[in-house]
């Protein structure tokens, strides 16, 4: 049992808290995670959750490192069993310390030095709380085991429960204290993790989920209207924004269905408010016609698709990357669109901003692809530079042009070189605009003309060139020249990055190529000197190798070797490593 196995020489600790839905594993995660981040460490938290509210088996896993951690580890250093089921599930396979509630295990308590009994529910009740505070007891115990001082934890408990009154804060602090006390002499069971002394302020970093990052990205982009219908894993974006309605003067509208959601967002953006909608693949299916409407009427629109395993209802609370070809091709007819797929929370934040920028500048729909792994996990991120966030409204008609215009002389779909026509907002004195879903004249009226049709198709598709020029190519680590590259996109970044760094540390000549801006693809997505020389292995969280297919369609490049995963879980570096070794054997 070593906390340093995966990445030699550095602290890398994984804690899994398992229990039934409803036992508050995720609260332990956020609490401890934040405490560690405040200590200057890097944290990654992910959740394995069933689609149910109570019962079953869920877990939250916290990974702590003194270097960036961007994905779960397959190894577990400390396992906390909030229920007996968790203990039964893992007691034979667990390698690390195991904390269990001996109040819940009658008779057959597991033997062995690494099994640490802790009657969490009983302690919670004795501490003046309820059995539901067992998770706070666990938090205290985990702090003790990992060398986290109690003060920052206590402080956080104060922040978290301040809204619920002093009594609740006090009880929780007492729970944490008692858990801490019970475990502080077990500290030596675990190797030191390089935690800095408590009085030393670490570098300031942020910890947030992918959904929070998207919501913050939207706020930073001056979003004014968010309409959606609840759907996991996208609901968290809506719920977070809803809590900011008053403060930011935005409106979050829960629509009657996803069709209404997308059409409301289109209406709002048409009126001049930056608008966004978010859903998962099934809800997106209902938005497909609306997306084509945004394309035809040339209304900006930002759509977040938080992917989950599909088709149909699939695995509502699990993860997959199987909507890439769907979002690049959905909707009838041909119109420009952009597809972005952040690899972590920082990228999620930033790419939402880019999505608004592109949507508004090119007056067309832009997709941001998240997934359950990206959206529900918590990621440690360097603080944002505020200045670079907000971008001015794009492609509106200029004041001068308006002044020079005859009354009611505005033509919405003026043919231009870029394909972008200066946009007017309804309510402008002396002018009106006609936005039309039929094929239309430059004025926006229904036409039947072959010539106009041709000109309008070309005008709209010309925007693709403009967008292409603004797209970023993939991140290539460590640059050109490696012998082999993993090729990936979106939320597999963390696992791929760690795997490649691990391989390189062992002297293997690997690199990776990660795409976060997928459509329209830059001219030469995989530079010639790499594509021609290096071995490429695609890593995708789907069954058909969708990035491979997209690359082949766009460039002809065929990545024949693929490591695909489609069991509803994200890759861990350990699994990816194993799969790569398997590949080698097979060839």
């Amino acid at each position, binding site marked *: 049992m070593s906390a340093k196995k995966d990445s030699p020489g550095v602290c890398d600790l994984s804690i899994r808290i398992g229990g039934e839905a409803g036992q508050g594993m995720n609260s332990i995660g956020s609490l401890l995670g934040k405490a560690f*981040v*405040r200590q200057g460490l890097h944290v990654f938290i992910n959740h394995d959750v069933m689609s149910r509210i109570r019962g079953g088996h869920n877990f939250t896993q916290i990974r702590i490192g003194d270097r960036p951690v961007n994905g779960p580890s397959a190894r577990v250093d400390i396992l906390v069993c909030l229920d007996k089921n968790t203990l039964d599930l893992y007691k034979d396979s667990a390698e690390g310390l195991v904390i269990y509630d001996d109040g819940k295990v009658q008779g057959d308590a597991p033997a062995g030095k690494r099994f640490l009994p802790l009657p969490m529910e009983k302690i919670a009740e004795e501490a003046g709380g309820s059995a539901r505070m067992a998770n706070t007891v666990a938090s205290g115990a985990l702090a003790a085991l990992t060398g986290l001082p109690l003060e920052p934890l206590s402080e956080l408990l104060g922040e978290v429960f301040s809204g619920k009154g002093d009594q609740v804060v006090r009880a929780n602090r007492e729970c944490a204290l008692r858990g801490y006390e019970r475990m502080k002499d077990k500290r030596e069971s675990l190797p030191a993790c390089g935690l800095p002394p408590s009085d030393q302020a670490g570098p*300031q*970093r*942020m*910890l947030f989920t992918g959904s929070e990052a998207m919501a*913050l990205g939207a706020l930073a982009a*001056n979003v*004014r*209207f968010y309409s959606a219908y609840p759907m996991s894993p996208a609901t968290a974006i809506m719920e977070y924004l809803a809590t*900011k309605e*008053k*403060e*930011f*003067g935005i*409106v979050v509208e829960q*629509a*009657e*269905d996803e*069709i*209404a*959601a*997308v*059409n*409301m*967002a*289109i*209406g*709002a*953006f*048409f*009126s*001049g*408010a930056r*608008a966004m909608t978010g859903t998962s693949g099934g809800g997106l299916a209902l938005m497909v*016609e*609306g997306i084509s*409407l945004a394309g035809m*009427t040339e209304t900006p629109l930002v759509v977040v698709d938080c992917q989950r395993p599909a088709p149909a209802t699939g695995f509502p609370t699990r993860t997959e990357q199987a909507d890439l070809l769907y979002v690049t091709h959905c909707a009838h007819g041909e119109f420009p669109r952009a597809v972005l797929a952040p690899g972590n929370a920082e990228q999620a934040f930033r790419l939402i901003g880019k999505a608004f920028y592109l949507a508004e500048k090119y007056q067309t729909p832009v997709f941001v692809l998240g997934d359950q792994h990206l959206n529900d996990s918590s990621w440690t991120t360097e*603080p944002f530079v*505020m200045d670079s*966030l*907000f971008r001015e409204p794009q492609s509106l008609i200029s004041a001068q042009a308006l002044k020079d215009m005859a*009354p009611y002389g505005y033509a919405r779909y003026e043919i231009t070189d870029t394909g972008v026509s200066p946009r007017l*907002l*309804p*309510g*402008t*004195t*002396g*002018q*009106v*605009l*006609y936005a*039309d*879903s*039929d094929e239309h004249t430059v*004025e926006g*009226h*229904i036409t039947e003309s072959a010539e106009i049709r041709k000109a309008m198709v070309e005008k709209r598709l010309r925007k693709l060139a403009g967008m292409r020029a603004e797209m970023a190519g993939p991140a290539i680590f460590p640059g050109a020249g490696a012998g082999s590259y993993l090729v990936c996109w979106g939320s597999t970044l963390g696992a791929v990055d760690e795997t490649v760094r691990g391989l390189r540390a062992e002297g293997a000549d690997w690199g990776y190529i990660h795409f976060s801006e997928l459509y329209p693809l830059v001219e030469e997505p995989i530079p010639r000197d790499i594509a021609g020389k290096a071995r490429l292995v695609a890593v995708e969280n789907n069954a058909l190798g969708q990035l491979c297919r997209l690359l082949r369609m766009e460039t002809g490049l065929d990545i024949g070797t693929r490591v695909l995963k489609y069991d509803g879980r994200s890759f861990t570096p350990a699994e990816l490593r194993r799969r790569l070794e398997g590949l080698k054997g097979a060839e």
Partner: protein
Amino acid sequence: MTAMAPKDLFASPDPIAWCPGCGNFGILNALKRALVELELRPEDVLMVSGIGQAAKLPHYLRCNMFNGLHGRTLPVATGAKIANPVLVVIADGGDGDGYAEGGNHFIHAMRRNLDMTYLVHNNQIYGLTKGQASPTTDRDMVTGTTPEGNVLGPEKPLALAVASECGFAARGFSGNMDHLVELIKKAVRHEGFSFVEILQPCVSFNKVNTFDWYKKRVYVLDEASYDPTDRTAAFEKALEWGDRIPLGVIYRSERRTYEDLRGLKGAPPLKDRTLDKEKLAAVFEEFF
């Protein structure tokens, strides 16, 4: 800006593609008159429509227009109005658009109660697609999709409106211009969601519910004796369909609007609000 005669103010250069004799002409004229009499200017008005013959109407008016998808009139109107409550928003479409494809939005827009007006041209048929049954097609009528006669009876949208506590639910007739003008004016003036169903003969595909058919049956509710605020009476009146068909305001109720409840009333429109970076920085603090 050049001054225009009021009656030309709302004239659009787009040539009209309706059949001669279509009831939609009456609706277009009534709406133009109503807008002039309401002393609105073209830029004050946003018409949102779906797809169908009815939904072409906004092209024939000078005003802001969003001509969207079949059945999706109300959600677009909702988003547009929330983003800029200063606009006078009028949603407009056919019976197929509003009661079939758009049925869910109809119910939920009435619940939401934004301050806008919804005009449904009810010709009891799908006009643009050449004559299939709509939810309001009368029983036994032969249409393209019901060659043996429609087995279903007509839906009662006004009854749904009363059930949904729509604050203003009325019926007009394209052949009764003066009444229709007044009805539209009242609807636009009503603070909240106003629904006006307008009977509209389709000369090409509805040979049953013709101008004469309607003319013989419609009667204007007597404002002195009929109390549209009595919900039960309104429900009964909303069901009346056959030898006699009531015109006028069927149901009225005072409900707070969405704008009011969500603090949009009187506040700067969403579209004009800008990011407060201080606040954003404060929110970031929560994540440290």
